């Protein structure tokens, strides 16, 4: 019997079965609005092995970017951490490293992310809350005290002031006698997604893109092991987008950055290998795995066909993954351990380069030490016990996975084309298009939950009345006063002439579009200028962005 005939026979059987045994839903639809069929087979998941999948480590990298993936080295286990003062966060870093974490990831508080010093009036209530407070390079020294910067890789979630925090990291290394060329790590530095989803923008798009291109160019020349940008879909998804929108908006943003740097006459091959990405891992296991595979394949094609990249490195999609914070429930919080496990599994089966697993108590507060440890152990169990890391792309060739990979790639590509027609990512953001799309998707998902079409254990099914009391972590409000004291001490000891001079030079350089600002920012940092002083100088030249309000 041929395949087609077999399929027809099954269809008849299926229809007959449905009459007696109706299905749980009339339609089974993924978050990315893809309706899934009851079964996939070679007739509905066509794949050409060489051109669609290729071999691991080879174009188009669908199966992964290394020839043996995790058989050599596991993904980097990198837990995002930071709260309170530099000393407290330094303790948490050391705790994580002692328990087998393999890379650092710094969370900064909101004043730092907005480029305000802790003594600014807008910093009221926010100092040390969602991350560590950093005002001067002295804080940065305390943050990395006793940690060998030549050995560890450090990721920093910082965007509008990314150039300043990178400069601080460089100056700390420099003052410890470590050459910047050996430093390895990442700054997020992805401003476009801040306008659409995360909110910590400061300057308008144009000067922001220039600053980003400055850091990319600087790193291409001086810091070969540093990722000067982590182009992020994570926050777009957290804000409520679908999986398709997550990748499409991220790549649209990425194309805007690449164009900005190419315009400086740098070849794509000279810098594209240092671009890194950051995605979300949500609850639907197969949709997420297929998303990662589709993203890898599509990015390779974009770099090769649209930008003319020739080196493999420039076509490889290297990405960090974090499990989905928005799926964590405040109800029955221990259930979150299971959600995180499934999401982490999707990331590993999808071939991530590094991973953050959320703590089960994060819907309630900053994670406690105990919850952070369980999250890290979840990764270690996946790595050491489950066997999923022993074979490259173990789901490659699954009819369903290949079908979804194809479908997601084509949907993502259509969405990117739509944005290109609008004039690219910046135009799509300034018109509020991306923001509107995300808000629509978020509201559609919420309504699905409210109507009981989307089921969430503990929220709209298997609910319990007794809400358990959990220990929550609170940050001492005195931290603001301590930070203000630290700033005073630095200001009292520094050479005020050098401060004025370096800030003046930065101002002049900012007015000249052809000047790379990184060396000037480094000099300001070295002179003990505060983050706020440096950012205020740039605000004076660049102005501040006022967004359209969309809901």
């Amino acid at each position, binding site marked *: 019997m041929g395949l087609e005939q077999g399929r027809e026979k099954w269809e008849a059987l299926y229809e007959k079965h449905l009459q007696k045994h109706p299905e749980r839903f009339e339609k089974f639809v993924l978050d990315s609005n893809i309706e899934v069929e009851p079964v996939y087979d070679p007739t509905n998941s066509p794949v050409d092995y060489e051109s669609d999948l290729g071999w691991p480590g080879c174009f188009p990298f669908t199966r992964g970017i290394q020839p043996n993936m995790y058989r050599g080295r596991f993904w980097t286990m990198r837990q995002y951490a930071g709260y309170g003062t530099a000393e407290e966060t330094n303790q948490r870093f050391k705790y994580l490293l002692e328990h087998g974490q393999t890379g650092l990831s710094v969370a900064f508080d*909101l004043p730092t992310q907005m480029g305000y010093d802790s003594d600014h009036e807008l910093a009221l209530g926010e100092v040390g809350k969602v991350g560590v407070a950093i005002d001067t390079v002295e804080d940065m020294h305390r943050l990395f005290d006793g940690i060998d910067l030549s050995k560890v890789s450090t990721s920093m979630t910082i965007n509008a002031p990314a150039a300043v925090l990178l400069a601080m990291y460089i100056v700390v290394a420099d003052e410890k006698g470590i050459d910047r060329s050996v430093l390895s790590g990442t700054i997020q530095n992805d401003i476009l997604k801040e306008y659409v989803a995360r909110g910590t923008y400061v300057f308008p798009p144009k000067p922001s893109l220039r600053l980003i291109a400055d850091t990319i160019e600087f790193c291409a020349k001086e810091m070969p092991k540093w990722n000067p940008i982590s182009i992020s879909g994570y926050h777009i998804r957290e804000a409520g987008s679908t999986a398709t929108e997550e990748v499409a908006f991220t790549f649209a943003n990425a194309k805007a950055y690449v164009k900005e740097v190419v315009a400086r006459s740098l070849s794509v091959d000279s810098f594209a290998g240092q671009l890194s990405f950051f995605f979300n891992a949500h609850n639907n296991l197969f949709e997420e795995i297929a998303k990662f595979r589709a993203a890898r394949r599509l990015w390779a094609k974009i770099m090769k066909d649209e930008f003319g990249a020739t080196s493999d490195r420039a076509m490889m999609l290297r990405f960090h993954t974090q499990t989905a914070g928005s799926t964590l429930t405040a109800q029955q919080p221990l259930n979150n351990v299971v959600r995180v496990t499934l999401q982490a599994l999707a990331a590993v089966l999808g071939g991530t380069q590094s991973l953050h697993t959320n703590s089960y108590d994060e819907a309630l507060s900053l994670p406690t030490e105990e919850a952070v440890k369980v999250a890290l152990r979840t990764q270690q169990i996946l790595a050491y016990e489950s066997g999923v890391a022993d074979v490259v792309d173990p789901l490659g060739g699954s009819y369903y996975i290949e079908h979804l990979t194809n479908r997601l790639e084509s949907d993502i590509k259509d969405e990117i084309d739509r944005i290109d027609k609008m004039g690219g990512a910046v135009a799509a953001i300034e018109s509020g298009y991306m923001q509107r799309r995300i808000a629509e998707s978020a509201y559609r998902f919420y309504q699905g939950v*409210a109507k009981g079409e989307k089921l969430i254990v503990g929220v709209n099914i298997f609910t319990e009345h007794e809400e358990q009391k959990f220990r929550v972590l609170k*940050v001492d409000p005195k931290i603001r006063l301590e930070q203000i004291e630290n700033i005073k001490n630095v200001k009292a000891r520094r050479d005020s002439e050098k401060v004025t001079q370096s800030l003046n030079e930065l101002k002049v350089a900012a007015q000249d579009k052809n000047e790379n600002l990184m060396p000037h920012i480094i000099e300001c940092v070295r002179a003990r200028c505060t983050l706020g002083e440096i950012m205020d100088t740039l605000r004076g030249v660049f102005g501040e962005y006022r967004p359209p309000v969309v809901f």
Partner: protein
Amino acid sequence: MSLKVIVAKPGLDGHDRQAKIIARTLKDHGYDVVYTGIRQTPSQIAQTALQESADVVILNCLSGAHMELFPETARRVRELGLAPLIIGTGVIPDDDAEELVKMGIDIVFGPGTSPLRVIEAIKTWEQSRI
């Protein structure tokens, strides 16, 4: 006439998915809703409440700065002679919720609260007002 509701994001927190969903749900239930956008100071929110003659002010904060920002916003609003229902929402631990009520926030909803519960609370308040 439908009630005028301000949904506001005090402080530097840029995560406004929840705030937008609350705003949108209220709008779909017939309320006249104004969303302030992110990064508002307490005095900016009070000014908006004044200009819009707000009946209800819903504050949303996920960054943990609620203990400072909510009471300060309530103070500024009332300083202008306004008496709207003030509701606090976001990642607010139980102990803090009790404190906030003592500090002048009328109702506080912690993490995981459905926007429908916010609507119920507004309705209850409206009935008690008549």
